[in-house]
């Protein structure tokens, strides 16, 4: 049977790919971000409640930083603001557990940064922030404030591609993935370096070309049932790609409008 033929052929793929996926195979299920936040917040609350009588005289803001130069994983817990940042070479997650649903990113690039020592700031900048990172964080911050979303995470996918992804769901869209990429614009490609951010389907003629908040926007269908749309647009700093699952394209336009009118933080 043909279906078994391709399944058989797939079985002989390179070991490299098999081993690459093995890590996922052995992973435990990821806990959703809001659950992590809730658990983290609950742990903080418990620890603080238990320690309060003993620590009242030393309750100045606590900053615990760990950094490994060989493996630039870095965890910073600023107990004063309840800010939590976890960074690995592949991911950066910045959330404020104190402001849940949606989590707030508003003080990420300011208060936390100010609280670092000079050497920590250097490590911070070298390992996971730079100008691009700041821009994306500002947008992430603005998005969660300007649009009633369930923004979950900010990911810097690799050293070449800085992408903020956000999964939204509200009454307008079943859900939408927003990918905002900055800095890396290659010739002939509208979106950074990763083909993941450049859908071949979007090479067909756009079904809609319009201006939203003064910005040209192209909208493409990517499925036959016209329930998935991709919108591509850019401003002077970042490229946007919004993939939305909705039967009504006007709702996508509302979303784009909300994104484009996000006030940038200082």
């Amino acid at each position: 049977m043909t279906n078994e033929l391709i399944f058989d052929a797939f079985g002989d793929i390179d070991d490299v790919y098999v081993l690459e996926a093995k890590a996922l195979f052995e992973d435990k299920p990821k806990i959703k971000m809001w659950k992590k936040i809730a658990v983290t917040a609950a742990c903080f609350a418990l620890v603080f409640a238990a320690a309060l009588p003993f620590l009242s005289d030393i309750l100045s803001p606590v900053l615990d930083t760990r950094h490994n130069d060989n493996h630039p994983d870095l965890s910073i817990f600023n107990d004063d603001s309840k800010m939590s940042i976890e960074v690995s070479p592949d991911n950066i997650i910045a959330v404020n557990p104190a402001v849940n649903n949606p989590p707030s990113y508003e003080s990420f690039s300011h208060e936390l940064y100010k609280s670092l020592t000079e050497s920590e700031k250097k490590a911070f900048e070298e390992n996971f922030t730079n100008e691009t990172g700041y821009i994306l964080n500002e947008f992430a911050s603005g998005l969660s404030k300007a649009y009633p979303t369930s923004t979950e995470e900010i990911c810097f996918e690799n050293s070449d591609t800085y992408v903020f992804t956000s999964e939204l769901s509200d009454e307008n869209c079943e859900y939408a993935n927003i990918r905002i990429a900055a800095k890396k614009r290659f010739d002939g490609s509208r979106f950074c370096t990763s083909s993941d951010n450049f859908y071949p389907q979007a090479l067909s003629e756009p079904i809609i070309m319009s201006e939203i908040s003064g910005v040209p926007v192209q909208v493409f269908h990517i499925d036959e049932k016209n329930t998935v749309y991709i919108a591509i647009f850019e401003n002077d700093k970042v490229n946007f790609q919004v993939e939305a699952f909705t039967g009504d394209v006007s709702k996508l336009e509302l979303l784009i409008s909300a994104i484009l009118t996000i006030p940038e933080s200082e």
Partner: protein
Amino acid sequence: MTDNEIVKLFWDRDESAVKTLSEKFGAFCKKIAYNILGDQRDAEECVNDTYLKIWSSIPPEKPNNLSAYLGRITRNLSLDIYRKRTAEKRKDGNMTVLLDELAECLPLYGTDVESEIDKKELTSAINAFLGELPKEKRIIFVYRYWYSASVSDIAAKTGKTSGNVSVILNRTRTELKKHLEERGFTV
């Protein structure tokens, strides 16, 4: 014990090799088998067959990567059992869906000329396709079609929604089909 040391045990025909292999990779093999067969007893039987096959194949084989080698044998044996069960009309839902999904990628689906396809060439084309995929997509795709994981399992492991995973898989299958068509795997 390292993988190389386990392989050496097999080469030395040391009977503790199977026990060591089982301790280190038993759960891994069983999960692969279970994903395909959907039945604990069949999965256990398949894993035992896998150990037997490993015992008879090492030596002369000396796999560079034991887990991939072991996983591949488990997968193939599971598929054999699945085929046998299908012949007995005991179709398993997950596996039937999975095979049908992959078949969409092959433009020949529904014809009788599949015998003309060289499996090695097909594998080579799939390898090339996987090499071009972004890492995240590739892992999800391989996890689905090599490890036979369910969509909900992938969603749980990656932190994505099931809908999102389905869309990624659907899109990747479409890309694979196009890739195969461009390389002459067509009627």
